[in-house]
């Protein structure tokens, strides 16, 4: 597969790993956070940590939209299916997130809720057209990679005059989440740099990360999705750390530039506006960090149409998802990890999503616990 296989080449990986080993300063530690869940998954799946020197540690960040989705939002989606008899369309990732009352979307389906897994939000629009006598709601989660497609779907629904289609909008933004990490008074964190998200950056460009580099004096390297990209980005971060630089660099130059995708950005701005505040799992309530539909499109807002209230729900007492999402704790530090909380029986969202730090570690890396 072109542009995929070349970036997974094991021989090049070995050489990159050797280059990294020769460039690290043995007298110090390097702690880098990979923000994006896709990178967390890649690091675990390819065993990248095995190729890094012992003094380089990757810390998993909160860039996993399923992981930061608060229980209260999943409750809303479940209520739509069970209490309002709506067809709820969701991406596969959300189906097993544990919500209130021992339910998840998958469990609600077993109880008779009409919940459909879709690959694309365009499928939700198609479903609405095929079922004119039923209400169809698309449970829209995701960062800026997934938001423009939702905007297109809403405009499409508007053009078709669909009266039975609406969106439960839980789209969130990347820069506020990064700010919250950098801002946080988490002294245990001590980050030396960030690996910036790959596909979010194709949309928003590299510019939004510049304030973080200058203000917090931390290097940011945007990395492509493949394991060689991640290794190379780590090498670039090590160099910056060694040289005392704090810049935004772009390893994923084949798909990211400074401006990003203007067309996609314009579409997002046309359909969505920013919520004044939004609760994130693990990060608390953040200002201007999530989207809702603009007034002109309010007819497609499921929260309005079904008068859904938002009720915050606290995490399970023993669940350390919050601290794990902020990078302060590792999955194996959580008392519930691997015992009560497993992918089969997830307590917190970090274990549900395959991008989540806990799921990734459990599924690919827990042999290293021993």
């Amino acid at each position, binding site marked *: *597969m072109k542009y*995929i296989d070349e970036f*997974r080449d*094991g021989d090049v*990986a*070995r050489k990159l*790993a050797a280059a990294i080993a020769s460039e690290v300063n043995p007298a110090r530690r390097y702690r880098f956070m990979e923000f994006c*869940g*896709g990178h967390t998954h890649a690091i*675990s*799946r*390819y*065993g*990248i*940590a*095995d*190729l890094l020197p012992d003094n380089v540690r990757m810390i998993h960040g909160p860039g*996993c*939209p*399923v992981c930061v989705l608060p229980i209260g939002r999943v409750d809303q989606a479940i209520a739509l299916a069970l209490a309002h008899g709506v067809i709820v369309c969701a*991406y*596969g*990732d959300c*189906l*097993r997130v544990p919500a209130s009352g021992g339910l998840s979307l*998958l469990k609600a389906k077993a109880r008779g809720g009409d919940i459909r*897994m*879709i*690959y694309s939000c365009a*499928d939700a629009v198609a479903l609405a057209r095929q079922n004119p006598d039923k209400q169809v709601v698309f449970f829209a989660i*995701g960062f800026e*990679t*997934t938001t423009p497609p939702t905007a297109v779907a809403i405009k499409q629904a508007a053009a078709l005059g669909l009266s039975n289609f609406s969106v439960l909008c839980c789209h969130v933004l990347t820069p506020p989440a990064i700010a919250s990490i950098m801002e946080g008074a988490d002294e245990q964190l001590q980050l030396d740099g960030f690996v910036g998200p790959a596909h979010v950056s194709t949309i928003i460009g590299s510019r939004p990360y510049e304030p973080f580099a200058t203000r917090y004096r931390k290097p940011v390297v945007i990395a492509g999705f493949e*394991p060689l990209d991640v290794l190379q980005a780590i090498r670039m971060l090590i160099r910056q750390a060694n040289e005392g630089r704090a810049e935004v660099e772009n390893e994923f130059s084949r798909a990211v530039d400074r401006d990003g995708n203007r067309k996609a950005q314009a579409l997002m701005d046309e359909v969505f506006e920013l919520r004044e505040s939004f609760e994130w799992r693990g990060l608390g309530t953040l200002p201007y960090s999530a989207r809702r539909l603009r007034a002109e499109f309010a007819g497609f807002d499921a929260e309005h149409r079904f008068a859904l209230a938002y009720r915050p729900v606290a995490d399970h007492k023993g669940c350390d998802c919050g601290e794990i999402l902020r990078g302060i704790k590792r999955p194996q530090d959580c008392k519930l990890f691997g015992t009560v909380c*497993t*992918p*089969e029986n997830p307590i917190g969202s970090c274990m549900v*999503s*395959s*991008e989540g730090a806990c799921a990734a570690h*459990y*599924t*690919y*890396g*827990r*042999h290293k616990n*021993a």
Partner: protein
Amino acid sequence: MPESRKNYLRPLDLKHGRVDMAHGAGGRAMAQLIDELFARHLGNEWLAQGDDGAVLPAPGAGRLVMATDSHVVSPLFFPGGDIGCLAVHGTINDVAVMGAQPLWLSAAFILEEGYPLADLARIVASMATAARQAGVPVVTGDTKVVERGKGDGVFITTTGVGVVPPGRELSGSRVQPGDAILVSGTLGDHGMAIMAGRESLGFESPIVSDTAALHGLIADLLASGADIHALRDPTRGGLATTLNEIARQSGVGMMLQEKALPISPPVAAACEFLGLDPLYVANEGKLVAICAQNDAEKLLTAMRSHPLGRRAAVIGSVHDDPQQFVQMATAFGGKRIVDWLTGDQLPRIC
């Protein structure tokens, strides 16, 4: 007035007719369905007898092996096969991996009211062809009909019986540290053929199910003289699930080499699109064989000499591990574990 013909039974309308409740009621309609559709295709001396049970000769030496499988695949027709031949192949394979020669099959159908007879005829014809080519007849069967909405068109349960010669012990619990792990060909073909065939996902692909009866290949492997400890067909849950099961049964660990896994490019691509891992995708015409280390080459040669094993490969080895992890050295150079499947593999967005 014309004389009504004696014993005239209007033939089944196989072109436009549909299954209805009468077909499962045990009366004339059901007898007609069995006659004109099932027996017509599956016909053999046992079914022709028309008794409630088939009387079969007891085996001489050796022990009986029995296996059963229910088939609820959707869609019923997919690239490379259908529920009918799948039902035959699957159960033949379950018997054969025990080292037994499959002898007879039973087939029980649960039909949904309204299912087109034309499609049912295609399924049964396909079953018959598969059984004939495999040399394993369907000697007894059953048909039930459930109301519209209570079934998914057709469900089929097949049970198979075979005989394993004395002294042959193949079991997932016999695997030892040092053993070699082989697969008979490319992984993930069946599962991805099904996925890609699902209309809702909108793919077009050349991927075709690998559904096949493996008893011929298995006979060759057993004749090769290699010291085989375990044989299994990695169906639901894929190779990863099968290996984890065996690791637990034998109390060992395993190390796979990702570079050695045979995966066809379209299957790899379809998995990429959907965020699925081919290690967890179902196979219906492949074998996992675990043998003594010294016999790996011999076994590989035997596999590759058979049409169903051309892309066979040695993919890893067994070692001591009290935690019974199945691990993999990635093509990239790192290591990861290949864990049990959690729930259903759901296509990821991120």
